[in-house]
């Protein structure tokens, strides 16, 4: 009998906290894995990487990180992370948040952190609903989807979060799903190597509250559905709005340079001190 092999992500996980809070089949643990894989492949020192998160299922990601982490208020992780980055610009600061946390209650901080180009790596776990509180509608719930607060189907159009942060000024923007393990890891690596505000949306399966009500099956079935629904931005460019209705457009949307916020604050200091 061979020894049990430990999951490769576990050395970055606070094992004393197991069992974790996530449901069987949930994509959040995969996103934890993708993030630590990117850190490992880049050879970053975990003691120089701070994870910040807000409230919700994805808000728990940061709290399992082996290094420094801060579990903050609902909607505010980007503002807390901005304070940390300004105080300690030499650290890598990663923010995990859900669609509710980052785009609804925290929507204002999302656009302003992007506008300021704060040097944060933001990973948005888009599971189309408020999982932790039982599956209410969120700003990314697709039209017509059933949630606990849209029993007749969602009548509100969803946000395109990548478009939103790109318009607001983010310097790196991409979207993948939990199915796209390697592209997602590569995107996180790229984001961690950029100075500015990086935003990676990862569409993730919420089996228990969203998937069940919308008859999407278990975790692997939902991931296969994401695979079928995904089109590249190049494919999307040739498709009509009607054809794109139930699609997830994946790929890198923005990769550009702009001065980073904490670096600009340091420049300002030099100027103010006449040096």
């Amino acid at each position, binding site marked *: 009998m061979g020894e049990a092999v430990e999951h490769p992500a576990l050395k970055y996980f*606070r094992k*004393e*906290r197991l069992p974790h809070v996530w449901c069987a089949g949930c994509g959040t643990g995969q996103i934890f894995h993708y993030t630590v894989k990117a850190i490992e492949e880049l050879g970053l020192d*975990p*003691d*120089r990487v*701070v994870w*910040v998160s807000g409230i919700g299922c994805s808000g728990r990601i940061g*709290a399992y990180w*082996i*290094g*420094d*982490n*801060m*579990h*903050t*208020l609902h*909607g*505010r992780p980007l*503002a*807390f*992370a*901005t*304070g*940390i*980055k*300004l*105080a*300690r610009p*030499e*650290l890598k600061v990663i923010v995990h948040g859900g669609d509710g946390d980052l785009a609804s209650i925290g929507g*204002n*901080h999302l656009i*302003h952190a992007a506008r300021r180009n704060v040097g944060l790596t933001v990973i948005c776990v888009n599971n189309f609903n408020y999982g932790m509180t039982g599956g209410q509608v969120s700003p990314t719930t697709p039209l017509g989807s059933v949630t606990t607060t849209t029993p007749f189907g969602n009548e509100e159009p969803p946000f395109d979060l990548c478009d939103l942060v790109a318009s607001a000024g983010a310097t790196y923007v991409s979207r993948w799903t939990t199915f796209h393990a390697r592209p997602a890891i590569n995107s996180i690596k790229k984001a961690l190597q950029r100075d500015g505000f990086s935003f990676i949306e990862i569409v993730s399966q919420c089996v228990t509250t969203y998937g069940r009500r919308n008859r999407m099956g278990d975790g692997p079935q939902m991931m296969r559905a994401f695979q079928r629904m995904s089109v590249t931005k190049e494919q999307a460019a040739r498709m009509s709005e009607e054809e794109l209705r139930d699609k997830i457009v994946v790929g890198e949307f923005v990769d550009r340079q702009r001065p980073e916020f904490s670096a600009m*604050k340091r420049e*300002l*200091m030099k*100027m*103010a*001190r006449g040096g």
Partner: protein
Amino acid sequence: MSQSQTLKGIDYLQGNEALVEGAIAAGCKFFAGYPITPSNEISERMSWRLPQVGGIFVQGEDELASIAMVIGASWGGLKAMTATSGPGFSLMQEGIGYACMTETPCVIVDIQRCAPGQGIATKGQQGDMMQARWGTHGDHEVIALAPASVQEMFDLAVEAFNLSESYRVPCLIMAEEIVAHMRDKVRLRDPSELRLKERRRPDIPPGKKIDFHQLDDEAGIPPMPRFGDGYRIAVSAFSRNRMGYPITDRDLHGKLLRRLSNKILNNIDAIARFETSFLDDAEVVVVSYGTPARSAKSAVKAAREEGIKAGYVRLITVWPFHHEKLRALCGGAKEVITVEMNLGQIFGEVERAVARNAHTSLVSSPGVEPPTPWEILSKIREVA
């Protein structure tokens, strides 16, 4: 820092400006705030003074962001502060509770204006005093100071940072529009003559599992590591065990709650400061805080000139409220008058302290202006 740009010596400043210089002298290196009258001169002055001393100013997108940035910067190792007024103070309450629960040192300035609602943005009131105490949800203790002069805007800014760093608790400066916009001579004390306090850092090297979150000591204040120094700390406002991890256990929750309260309450003698005069033989004591204390002092002096045995107590620290000390200060007085610029918020606390020994009454104004010395003197004459 080759060239210290801390201002020193005698200056003629507005209260809000003096407060900024006090904060800078205390070592404040981070400020985030959102525009709101009548606190704006604080962020305006911070925006040019902080970069000069190697600090960072951010105008937050709102008050929710501002308090969150301040807490984040504090965990990044900087002395951090925000300033606001009533409506913004309401928005910051969740963040203040987060700072209480995570024991984050930070200073929050509330330049109170007439309220509730939008009230009168340009006129002062002391309407947020109970909000300062109970604004955020749950049992908790904060420290709140009430400056009564431009000099005290400077001095109590220093004191607020010292208290906040020492006790790892948010410290509130509950000023109001009048003292904030008052101009007066102020001595900008040299940082070398200030006894500045710094939060206690872990005295062991990183790498070991350290108890940063819970202590067996019922009133202990744990050392505070800084992010990025290798201590691998998990910060969260969940009720927590020694490692900082969430718990649902009654005993552990109770232990945390009591420690967070007791670290303040057990040190109340050191924290709670009073200014007193004419108390030795006082039969009527006037209790006040903040700007209205200026009227109260005039009234007590005038009463003394008339031969009335009036005494004066000013609360410099309003929270934690030191009932026992106030009772002792009021001693044998048969009448205790509370003077404040609201319909009677701190009056209730004064009553709790002295009502068994003395008859109590209130002289209040609804804001805009403090009660006049004449109004207070009339009450003193009436009850003497």
